[in-house]
């Protein structure tokens, strides 16, 4: 939990670090504040985001190793090791300090979409295009369990996808969510399904104009106390050629399968990633779409939108650095570092220039 809550209204972009194409996944080394990203070119990039000197506005990201043969979709951090999940169907463990590959496993029959750490259990969970959620020993890479439930096809007969994956902070539950808005919550001890519900608003199938769909639950996060589950994505889409619909979050009391909050904004975008900050009092979502990129913030106490910011480009994922109180985002063209402090006063010379 943050020592001091951030004020989302003060959000400002303080640094960008360029990387080619799109970075899809990121993870944070909580000790150093270094953020790692991976994406289209299969390389891992690094940004030291807690420098002793002020960050310049713009710089290239540090290019590290490449172990994957396809896009990197997601990263997880475990004790100095980065676990990368890729569309090449593999999970790879790599030591961050020297780029030494420790192990790899063929994780799914299809793209691996996400990997998360299940706290306290020495476990990783992954989702893939085989529609399974799999559980792994975080240290050895041994397969522990495989959970099936998401349907292979959408109601209209097209391929479905599991996009959302989250673990509760106490490690007791893991949740998965798919393109059609179906959510499962799994008990992390027995790996039995303990709840399921459908948030169908995140899925738009347009039978009349285009005979195809868009959407899905792309962001998924447990509240810090584990009782609520937040979903992120896009609301009803008017034109499924793109993200032409209101960005949307929902919060569910998952144990009672009851929706408790809907946050929407007229900004047309999909929220690819969401997270609770300020001890669960603030829900942050980030993404992009027809209305351009967005970071949206909702106050969970007042259940109302509290702030939004316009990122430099479409965001795919972010990590929140509690120590530095910075949001470290990855997406199109690399990294973005967002601070939540007042902008420093300009020197008289800068003021003259501006």
């Amino acid at each position, binding site marked *: 939990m943050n020592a001091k809550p951030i004020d989302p209204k003060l959000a400002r972009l303080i640094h960008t670090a360029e990387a080619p194409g799109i970075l899809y996944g990121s993870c944070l080394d909580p000790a150093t504040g270094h953020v790692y990203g991976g994406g289209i070119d299969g390389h891992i990039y690094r940004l030291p985001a807690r420098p002793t000197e002020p960050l310049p506005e713009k710089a290239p990201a540090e290019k590290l190793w490449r172990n994957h043969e396809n896009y990197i979709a997601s990263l997880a951090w475990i004790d100095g090791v980065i676990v990368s999940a890729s569309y090449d169907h593999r999970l790879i463990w790599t030591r961050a300090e020297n780029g030494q590959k420790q192990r790899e496993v063929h994780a799914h029959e299809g793209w691996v979409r996400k990997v998360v750490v299940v706290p306290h259990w020495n476990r990783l969970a992954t989702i893939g295009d085989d529609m399974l959620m799999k559980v792994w020993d975080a240290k050895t890479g041994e397969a522990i369990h495989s959970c099936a439930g998401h349907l292979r096809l959408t109601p209209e*007969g*097209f391929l479905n996808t599991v996009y959302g994956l989250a673990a509760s902070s106490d490690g007791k539950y893991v949740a998965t969510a798919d393109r059609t808005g179906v959510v499962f919550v799994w008990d992390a001890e027995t790996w039995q399904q303990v709840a399921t519900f459908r948030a169908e608003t995140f899925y738009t199938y347009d039978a009349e*104009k*285009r005979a*195809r769909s868009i959407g899905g639950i792309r962001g998924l996060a447990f509240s810090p106390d584990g009782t609520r589950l937040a979903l992120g994505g896009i609301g009803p889409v008017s034109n499924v*050629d793109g993200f032409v619909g209101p960005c949307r979050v929902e919060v569910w009391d998952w144990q009672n399968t009851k929706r408790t909050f809907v946050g929407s904004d007229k900004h047309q975008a999909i929220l690819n990633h969401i997270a609770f900050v300020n001890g669960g009092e603030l829900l942050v979502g980030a993404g992009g779409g027809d209305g351009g990129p967005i970071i949206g913030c909702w106050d969970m106490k007042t259940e109302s939108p509290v702030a939004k910011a316009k990122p430099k480009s479409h965001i795919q994922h972010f990590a929140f650095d509690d120590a530095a109180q910075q949001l470290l985002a990855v997406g199109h063209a690399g990294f973005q570092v967002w601070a939540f402090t007042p902008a420093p006063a300009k020197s008289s010379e800068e003021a003259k220039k501006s």
Partner: protein
Amino acid sequence: MKSQHNEHKQPSGTCITHEHRFHRRAFVGGMLTGGAASLTLPGVSFAGEVPAASSLKQQQKRVLFLWLAGGSSQFEMWDPKPGRETGGPFRDIGTAVSGYRVCELMPKLATRMNKIAVVRSLNTKISEHFQAADLVSTGWPKEPALEHPEIGVVLAKELALQDSLLPDYVSLFTTSEGRRRPSPGFLSRRHAPLLLEGSLQPSNIELPAGLSAEAHARREALRSSLSQQFAQQRAGNDLISGYNEAYARVRGLMRSDELFNLENEPTKNRDRYGRTPFGQHCLLARRLLEAGVPVVKVARGFWDSHHDNFESHRELVPDFDNVLSVLLDDLDERGLLASTLVIVLSEFGRTPKINQDVGRDHYADAWSCAFAGCGIRGGAIHGKTNEDGTAVVEGEANAADVAATIYQAAGIDPLKHYQVGQRPVPLAKEDAQPIRAVLS
């Protein structure tokens, strides 16, 4: 030698008396709804032209257009570039054709590439939907003074069966985005297609409430008798033949409602094609082709993936892969593939550059189309793009070349021309070159 045929639009009302118009309205008015309401009845001649029987027609050649409306991505289908920055995340897979690889989203078609010919080197230059669709659908650039007919309309005219009671051309475009109603251009509207837009059943072909089949037959007998008397008084008037053909087509259509009813198809066939709209539309197309409709177009909207391109193609391409594979097998099993030209075409392809919303935009400079069946050399792969798919480097072809290839494959001389007023207009643009590599 160039063949020649005179045809042009009749000015409104020409050769059609008030009396005839009244009877036409009484009998067939409102028979077809939707877009067809604005056309004269498809396949119905009011212009007095009766197509001459020809060897082509006796051979019963058929053409099926699969129109991937909105612009499908060549990278995620016929011309993958795995490992390149432009390539996207899908891998390529080997095919039945040595050395040719397709996107991994098409495993079923990969095993059937010996039946399919691909052109990977289209450069059609126009990347705006409507203008591009006009260009690719007609094979001609827009001309202010002359509206060219859609290729399907020309084929419907050329391949029409004289005594058929079925439409010469049926166009299925059930989604509304980018919907096109194939234009007869300077040809008679009699060659315009029967449009299936709202549903797969032609509208209003059932008898009106209160009119029994017997009463309908009596009316038809009376009409036929009057028509005969009229013909005797005006022997030699082609218009009479046109009218009789018109009524015959209408009766044929009314009797063919079962043809459009997919419930009549065995469940295993319906499941084989897949219960998606495209699957069921292609199953209907096969039924129509088998029944003798010479030209069918199935539009599958809508591929315009400006955002989330890979998720969109992950949804659309496996369906396309299954449906086209089953369709080719089905046509083959029924002995129809050798006489049916199948064409897979869009208005353009998608950009090599992946935009910030993980989309691909419109791109006409280097894209692909495919052919199979009648007149096609299966397994032929024509043309090449560069490593990133940004430009054609070998075998460039344009929209006119595609049109010429289609005509040639269907056994029609692309240089055959119609006389439009004082101007002889060839089927394909004068400088068009059929893509010989894909022709058998």
